[in-house]
């Protein structure tokens, strides 16, 4: 992705217009990540807004050690994981019940059925809903964003070995669930 250093620098200095250009430029990818992770359009929208507010507040501290995109994603991932942690803490029992009940996953997500029209897509949705947020996140970052293990480790604040094992677990679980559902 093209990163306009000037725009980032202007936004760092407090230019609202420059910041708005960043929102316009990165919205689609950020929303894609959050939609696939949160499994709820409204929640994804809320998380994206929170992410941008944090980015605006912390932009002056962005030193450019990593690319802006990686930094932005790490803010989004932390925002989403913090949210899931809070929700889990509030309703641990309900959440576990949802995860343990087969077929309930689809209720977490309300996709546009005109678009989601194949059986495989539906099974894929349900399987994704049943994965934990961390596994879902790592899968999306690798398979859909095409990020390297190093970048994912940086974004998720973990080691590359952890990324490798989470990716394997995510793939294996998805594979098992897809196989079971389709059979």
């Amino acid at each position, binding site marked *: 992705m093209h990163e306009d250093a000037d725009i980032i620098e202007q936004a760092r200095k407090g230019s*609202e217009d420059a910041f*708005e250009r960043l*929102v*316009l430029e990165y*919205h*689609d990818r950020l*929303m*894609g990540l959050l*939609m*696939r992770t949160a499994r709820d*359009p*409204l929640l*994804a*929208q809320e998380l*994206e*807004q929170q992410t*941008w*507010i944090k980015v*605006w507040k912390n932009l002056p501290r962005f030193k450019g050690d990593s690319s802006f995109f990686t930094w932005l994603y790490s803010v989004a991932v932390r925002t989403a994981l913090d949210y899931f942690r809070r929700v889990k803490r509030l309703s641990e029992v309900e959440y576990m019940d949802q995860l343990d009940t087969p077929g309930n996953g689809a209720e977490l997500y309300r*996709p*546009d059925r005109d*678009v*989601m029209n*194949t059986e*495989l*897509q539906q*099974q*894929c*949705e349900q399987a*994704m809903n049943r994965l934990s947020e961390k596994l879902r996140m790592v*899968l*999306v970052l*690798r*398979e*859909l964003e095409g990020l*390297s*293990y190093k970048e994912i480790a940086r974004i998720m604040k973990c080691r*590359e070995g952890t990324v*490798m*094992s989470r*990716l*394997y677990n*995510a*793939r*294996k679980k*998805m*594979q098992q669930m*897809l196989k079971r559902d389709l059979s």
Partner: protein
Amino acid sequence: MKITEQILSAWIDESLSLQDMKTVSAAVEADPALQARADALRSVGAALRQESTESPVTAERMAADVRRAIRLQEQAPAQAVRFPVWARAGLAACACLALAAVLIPSMMSGDRPVVQAQIESVNSGLSGVSTMVYTDYDAGWTVVWLDGAELEAGL
């Protein structure tokens, strides 16, 4: 080298060392079962890419919402400092201890004389010398004074 599924998963991501990449590639090429396992792992990504994620909001709308939210936050008065629960519990415990430290000794000192201060005349055994003792129970003072002509002469 034993090719586990985890290594296979890293191999399809091209995230192994150059040497390991070569070893696994050769093994996969030579073993159809291994190739099938690798394909099965790859199929997860392919299935994911078919999933639609239509954004519920346009980029322009998001930008406007974010701008509004930031302005609202900046206009809002600074929030009072909120201590975490553990700090609040600690402060409450300290306050209780301080209160107890003040109240308990005063409650236990029930044998204290009702009189707050008194002056007594004591016989010193010296002729012409008057001795007075002033006791202040509240302040904890005891003042003794001697007065007399003989005493002054002796000093």
